[in-house]
């Protein structure tokens, strides 16, 4: 590696990493937090078989899972202004990413809720608890534990998917990389560099996931 290339990589490293820390990760975490709220609500609606809302939930999941994330970003960012709805890049990205991940996570949460034996609910009723009390204290906590590994995967996928927001001018780290590439006329090394930073983020999250799983297992409820 010649010295000018090494210099470029070292020089560009903070210029990529900082947008990663300032935009990519917060974008992912905020969107994921909202997605979890959407997912839990949508999953509970289906679990409790709420009429009408349940059909709406299925429709939401059908549309979101059946269309590409990039198309969803374009529809909101470039399409909605035709109807007088103009959103800034960052709010658009948060909105679309949380709606998108919310749909996938809703299916994860629904499966996890359905994996909790119905006897848990019945036992709750029989000690005098209401539906909401049993759901909140017994069923949902168990479902969240089951859903923890797949939800972690969805968070990691979301971190990488934030790179699509580069297309709607969010100054996250892939867009930062593209800007350096267009200035310096160096492609492969810079793209590999940003790839390495994504890999670093994913690795740390995978590591945190394993830590979390071990902690849940230690609380004694992973089996039976």
């Amino acid at each position, binding site marked *: 590696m010649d010295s000018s290339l090494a210099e470029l990589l070292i020089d560009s490293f903070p210029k990529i990493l900082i947008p990663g820390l300032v935009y990519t990760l917060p974008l992912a975490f905020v969107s994921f937090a909202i997605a979890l709220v959407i997912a839990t609500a949508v999953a509970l609606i289906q679990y409790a078989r709420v009429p009408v809302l349940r059909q709406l939930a299925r429709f939401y999941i059908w549309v979101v899972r059946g269309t590409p994330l990039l198309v969803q970003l374009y529809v909101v960012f470039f399409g909605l202004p035709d109807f007088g709805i103009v959103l800034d890049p960052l709010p658009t990205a948060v909105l679309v990413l949380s709606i998108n991940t919310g749909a996938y996570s809703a299916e994860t949460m629904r499966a996890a809720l359905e994996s909790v*034996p119905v*006897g*848990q609910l*019945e*036992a*709750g*009723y*029989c*000690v*005098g*608890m*209401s539906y909401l*009390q049993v759901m909140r*204290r*017994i069923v949902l*906590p*168990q479902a969240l*534990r089951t859903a923890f590994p797949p939800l972690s995967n969805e968070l990691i996928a979301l971190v990488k998917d934030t790179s699509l927001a580069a297309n709607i001018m969010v100054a996250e780290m892939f867009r930062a990389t593209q800007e350096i590439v267009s200035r310096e006329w160096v492609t492969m090394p810079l793209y590999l560099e940003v790839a390495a930073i994504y890999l670093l983020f994913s690795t740390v999250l995978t590591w945190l996931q394993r830590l979390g799983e071990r902690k849940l297992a230690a*609380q*004694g*409820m*992973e*089996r*039976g």
Partner: protein
Amino acid sequence: MTMTDMLKLSGVRKAFGGTEVLHGIDLTVRKGEVVAVLGPSGSGKTTLLRCANFLERADAGQLELDGVTLDLARAAHAQIAEVRRRTGFVFQGYNLFRNRTALGNVTEGLIVARHMPRAEAEKRAHACLMRVGMDDRCDAYPAALSGGQQQRVAIARAMATEPEIIYFDEPTSALDPELTGEVLASMRSLAEDGMTMLVVTHEMSFAKNVADRVVFMDGGVVVADAPAREFFEHPANERVRAFLRTADAA
């Protein structure tokens, strides 16, 4: 309903998908009485118990619990909650809360449904766990307990709410023979304390030695209803005799 009746079920009917499994059941349990419900698999015993606690909605029938009368098919949410607060239920599959310790399983209903202060709930829970010989494992999660231990915790959970009657749905059917003894011993001690119990079971020895009365169900109807001793020594009809013969052979 006489003064001493605790529970009276009358005309209980229930169908699943067009097939009626309970054809109008009448059953009475007096205060302090232990009633065993026997009968072959599919006779509707478990369904009857589940209807009595609204885990299944009966198509018709009445429930009288210590003087309060309810329509099993049409009772409102609040009435159902009230009935459940006054009764206990022990399941075939234990159904301990998997995210609670043994102690937490017993205190949950006291703290959440009855708003008992935690310290008081824990004191009572320890006493109940002591009764079933499980207080030394009070910090264990269900996954770390054997089936017999889980069922004993479930019995402690049911008695902690000081119910007027406890329903047992085949409490030993999921257990290895060597574990049924400890559960039956807990039930026997509860019975000796005067707890009113309605027990769906396959345990002939329990019916014979602990129950005051035996109700025999077959094909969704009550075929015999007699004091335990009489039930075994002078079977009321041929159907009961045939059942007792196969049970003896087993």
